[in-house]
């Protein structure tokens, strides 16, 4: 058995849950959210949408198949662990899987991310569900309360600017024969997952990945993909403004997750904060006017308010569980966005056709 050091998870309502430290032994602060996915911790932890959040995994055993070598960049969604902290029932430090180079706790330690295990994660999840997401922090047992800074709230700042690329990046898909031909897509990086870029490149398009506040409207392009990302969409006024101008150009736009919320705001609709968000791989969505449903991977705390959609927009997908908006589209123009993650990673691969549809529309 590991020797353990005690740490606490403290919530903004004063709740303190005791656990044992793994990974980095230190403090962390952020919004405490839970995800119900049973696999894919490597992908989740590196998903920039989790920036500023302490992630609670409802599946109790995390770390089972270790972590790939850092050099295998395609196995990670970004170049670092994005969560502020990780809370699990049981952290396994195995690295026996053929694809593993190190254990999950080692990885967290190397990136100075604190983890807490031995917490009653179900109890914590039910609490977050009943009270809504809360701010919280991970505290080593011996830190005196007086030395603590206030809890960090990622929804009150422009957290996107901390995860977007600093300079534009361009790349061409290796498969020249892909359906994308020589088309050029602006990828508005609000904290994009690598797999989104990979899906585009795999379809043979040229990708120009730009910072979230970049004005690309004067550049040559065939379509725009507005990416996922962390935080509150209302904290990104510049991105919204550029997008509004881009819409006037009438070329195809696809939004994913935060990108969809930004599109909605640019179109004049409003967004709101969900009580505890959708984070998991089993979110059922129905396509409007169809019997076809799809199971989706999701990670969002905000949603588009359907009642505020302008007349020329419509709801494209609806969450079967709670009826919230999971996709919107323009009635005449090639603008559409989904709240879920068609690139999966982690999660079900059922929606990759949306990339096909987008690239075909270019």
């Amino acid at each position, binding site marked *: 058995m590991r020797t353990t050091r005690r740490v606490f998870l403290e919530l903004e309502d004063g709740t303190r849950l005791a656990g044992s430290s793994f990974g980095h032994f230190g403090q962390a602060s952020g919004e405490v959210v839970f995800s119900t996915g049973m696999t894919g911790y490597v992908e989740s932890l590196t998903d920039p949408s989790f920036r500023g959040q302490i992630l609670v995994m409802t599946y109790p055993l995390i770390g089972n198949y270790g972590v790939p070598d850092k050099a295998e960049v395609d196995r990670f969604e970004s170049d670092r662990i994005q969560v502020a902290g990780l809370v699990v029932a049981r952290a396994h430090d195995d690295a026996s899987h053929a694809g593993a180079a190190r254990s999950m706790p080692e990885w967290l330690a190397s990136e100075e991310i604190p983890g807490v295990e031995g917490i009653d994660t179900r109890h914590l999840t039910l609490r977050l569900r009943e009270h809504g997401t809360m701010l919280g922090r991970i505290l080593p047992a011996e830190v005196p309360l007086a030395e603590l800074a206030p809890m960090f709230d990622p929804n009150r700042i422009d957290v996107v600017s901390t995860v977007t690329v600093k300079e534009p990046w361009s790349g061409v898909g290796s498969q020249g024969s892909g359906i994308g031909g020589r088309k050029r897509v602006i990828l508005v990086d609000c904290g994009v997952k690598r797999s989104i870029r990979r899906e585009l490149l795999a379809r043979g398009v040229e990708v120009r990945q730009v910072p979230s506040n970049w004005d690309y409207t004067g550049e040559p392009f065939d379509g725009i993909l507005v990416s996922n990302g962390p935080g509150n969409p209302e904290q990104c006024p510049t991105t919204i403004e550029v997008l509004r101008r881009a819409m006037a150009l009438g070329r195809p736009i696809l939004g994913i997750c935060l990108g969809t919320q930004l599109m909605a705001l640019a179109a004049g609709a409003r967004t709101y904060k969900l009580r505890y968000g959708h984070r998991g791989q089993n979110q059922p969505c129905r396509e409007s006017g169809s019997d076809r449903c799809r*199971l989706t991977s999701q990670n969002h705390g905000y949603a588009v308010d359907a009642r505020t959609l302008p007349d020329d927009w419509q709801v494209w997908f609806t969450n079967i569980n709670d009826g919230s908006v999971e996709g919107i589209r323009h009635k005449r123009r090639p603008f559409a966005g989904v709240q879920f993650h068609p690139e999966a990673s982690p999660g079900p691969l059922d929606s990759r056709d949306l990339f096909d549809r987008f690239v075909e529309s270019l």
Partner: protein
Amino acid sequence: MNRPDKVLILGSGALRIGQAGEFDYSGSQAIKALKQEGIRTVLVNPNIATIQTTPGLADEIYLVPVAADFVEKVIKRERPDGILLNVGGQTALNVGVELWRAGVLEKYGVRCLGTPVETIEESEDRERFAVRMRAIGVDVPRGSTASSVEGALEAAAAIGYPLMVRAAYSLGGLASGMVTSPDELRERVREALAHSPQVLVEEYLGGWKEVEYEVVRDRFGNGVTVCNMENLDPMGIHTGESIVVAPSQTLTNSEYHRLRSVSLHVADKLGIIGECNVQYALHPAGKEYRVIEVNARLSRSSALASKATGYPLAWVATKLALGHGLADLKNAVTGVTGCFFEPALDYVTVKIPRWDLNKFKAASRRIGTEMKSVGEVMAIGVTFEEALQKAVRSLGTGLDGLTDPKARVPDPRDEIAHPTDRRLYAMAQAIADGMSAREVHELSRVDPWFIARLLEIVQAAAGLAGQRLDAFDCEGLRTLKRLGFSDRALARHLGSTEDEVRSRRIQLGVVPHARRIDTLAGEFPAATNYLYMTYGGDHEEVEPEARGRPVVVLGSGPYCIGSSVEFDWCSVGMCRTASALGYRTVLINCNPETVSTDYDETDRLYFEELTLERVLDITSFEQPLGVVVSVGGQLPNTLAASLARAGVHLIGTSPDGIDRAENRRRFSALLDELHIAQPPWNELSTLDEARRFAAEVGYPVLVRPSYVLSGSAMNIAKTESSLAQYLMQAARVSPDSPVVISKFIEGAKEIEIDGVAQDGELVIYAITEHVEQSGVHSGDATVVLPPQNTYLETVRRAKWIAKSIARALRINGPFNVQFLARNNEVSVIECNLRASRSFPFVSKATGYNFIEIAARAMLGVDVKGEYRTLDLDYVAVKVPQFSFSRLKGADPVLYVEMTSTGEAACLGDSLEQAWYKAAISTGFSLPRKSVLVSIGADAHKVKLLDSLRALAAAGFELYATDGTHRFLEANGIKSQLAHKVSEGKSPSVVDLVLGKVVGCVLNIPKRTADEATLTDGYHIRRSAADIGVPLVNDAELARLFVRTLLAHPREGLEARPLSDYIRR
């Protein structure tokens, strides 16, 4: 889509290895799903012990064989417009396909609901299936056939080494095995071609991970995978023989979702409407996969998946078959979400198979690609270690956990490398004895992650050595409990007692908490009643039953020989009755193949181990009115005394009453007091005493040691030497482990009374007789109700005895008494103050629900009344189902230990007709009019003379072994001599059987079960089991068999519903 008005449901028939109680669960859920829509339901299933055959569920119940000819009769009579083939296992599927091919379904306008029959056919045919899968871009194992060494080498070159070589068309895996080089291949193929015209050369998948996905898909093409499961035992061990974990533990996100996508693709391309499962081999490095099999029906795995996730698969599959869409169905478990989603688990489940291999004579312990287990348990925990150790205890084999020394094996290395039913324990033992995790992995190919978990448990146990209980604080104890250690195991490691550990941990506040299984990891509020207990949390999620103190019912635990679906029927009946009387009900069980663990059967379900510790944890939390231990068979019954000692109130007969029946000496004294005869017996602790006692009462004697080294626990000794041999070699006799010896009464008739008493007064009883003479276990006997060949005087005496015992023990609830009768002398051989195996049989055959009456009696409702159970216008016969074909090497012989795995029962106008239908239900058929006869004892030869004469006269060709042949000759009956195998002459007995020259074997051995089994008789019986030729090995049964065969052609047997017989 047109909704059908009346649907025929095919059940799975008698339980056997590979097809057990899981189909009672799926069938029952399906019937409920149909009834909810007002559709009339007709059920064909001769398995009388099931819940689905209980009057009140299906509109009509046919206790007739699930065979094409009988089902056609039912269709003709009932005229259903729909048929459901996917809830009755392989049996129902095969019969359905047969009816479809024969045009019967079309002729009567019966539509197959759900997955089309064409798809079923395609998935069942290996060759066609492989072609189809390749065509849709799905990988299946590579392989081809060859008829020459050169051909095989060519095929091998395309596949690559190592690979598997199998002789085609050979029984028992003859000449098959792995080869690593062309030289080995040459040698192996030459050998194989000597036995068979063709060899199969296939890629070797040994050591690949084995993974399964359960898929549901609606007619709109919406599909989800409800659950994935990973086998701890990699490829090479049948999934029914494997320890299975849900969800998968060692698959990365991309592996998980790749296989998930393939599953949905396969279901989509095959056009599944309803449920299917897809089985994979996955390369350990995750690069490649192979689809091994697709089952286009509900299966054992789907039952497990359903219980592991809380998703009611069979119910959903039935709704989809009726044309509903997944998104439109409400999730009945949560009440808030729909059925189009994939459950998110926040716990881990572990399934362990339950084997009973030592019940069989000469059966090998090795496990592999064929199923041998008879049941399974599932355990739920927050850590894998907690779930695994809980599962070990749930098996009901007496182990307190993984580190129990009782599980030690003599040669762990051998059992790890060549898996047996004890491999899990062998791995733990090897690790404890210093074998490295790496070596365990290399020997077993079990994924290192699982071995690391075993290591954690073993190391934690080792760390306890030399420690004392009071040295542990709350955190220390909790850590151990999270690793799944039971109080008893901790007591063992710490030199303490279970009671001390329990009170210490309660004092420190270390108690398990109940958690909900809600299918969505807490994401939405869901008021489910499906619970488990864990040390993985420290908060109370549920409150004790608030609407009144509940009645706690202990379920049956895993199916095993002697405890099967009948006890699930009793448990469910108990709960339903208590519920109808206004009581809140709480059920505890750990068997995923049951109806009792369905979400809608009780107010609260604890999917938990049936151990004293856990039952006390639950009762101290729930504070019930009391606990019912008498409806789940022997496993819960054994907890009666210790529960009572712990202050738990038992509902039903008092603990002292139970003890007076269970304790051999007390019960014997009671019988003497009541002037009821019993075979003389004694408990002895030395071999000399045993010899003296046996000589005194005379041989044969029945020997029951309390400690068995190998083989079965009970035996009959005919001579002093066999007694001595048995007690020295197979068992141990000492003052610590005494042996019970009783006089074995030969040639007697066995009768039984199943009854219910209330406050000591017999309320209702049913009397049954065995066809076979004494010496055949009651679970293996052919049982007849009402008795056809028992003197009225005997019946009266038996009833009087039952009444006297009920009064003396103040029985309050179900009970069963077994009698021996010879010339109107009736003696008692056993009495159980609990529901017996035959409760569902006597209930359905008499039309009185005994368990309902027992439940009412126990709960204080006056149940006295007039019940007519003896004077019936029909006969009901229960026939055992054996699974010897699955148990290579086991001797298919009837003796004092039970070996049957299930039963079927049918009703008829006569004993013969009822028996014939029940026998057909257990697989009996007679393809040709020729019989091999081999009778050991002279008395039996004489007894069967008339029967054999009649057979010969009716044109049956008789083959007979040496002694029987001479006997027949002397009596002027023509027979052909069948040579012994050892003589080397043709035709040998084995040639006759394996060559299917004979259609049936009458092999009546002398009852010398304790002598060497590898005789000619064994060869005859074994080859009959291997080739599936009916085997009769009791003289009385043989007479019934011949009588039936000559008087009743199969075509003339009726298919009438149960309601047609039971009229009042």
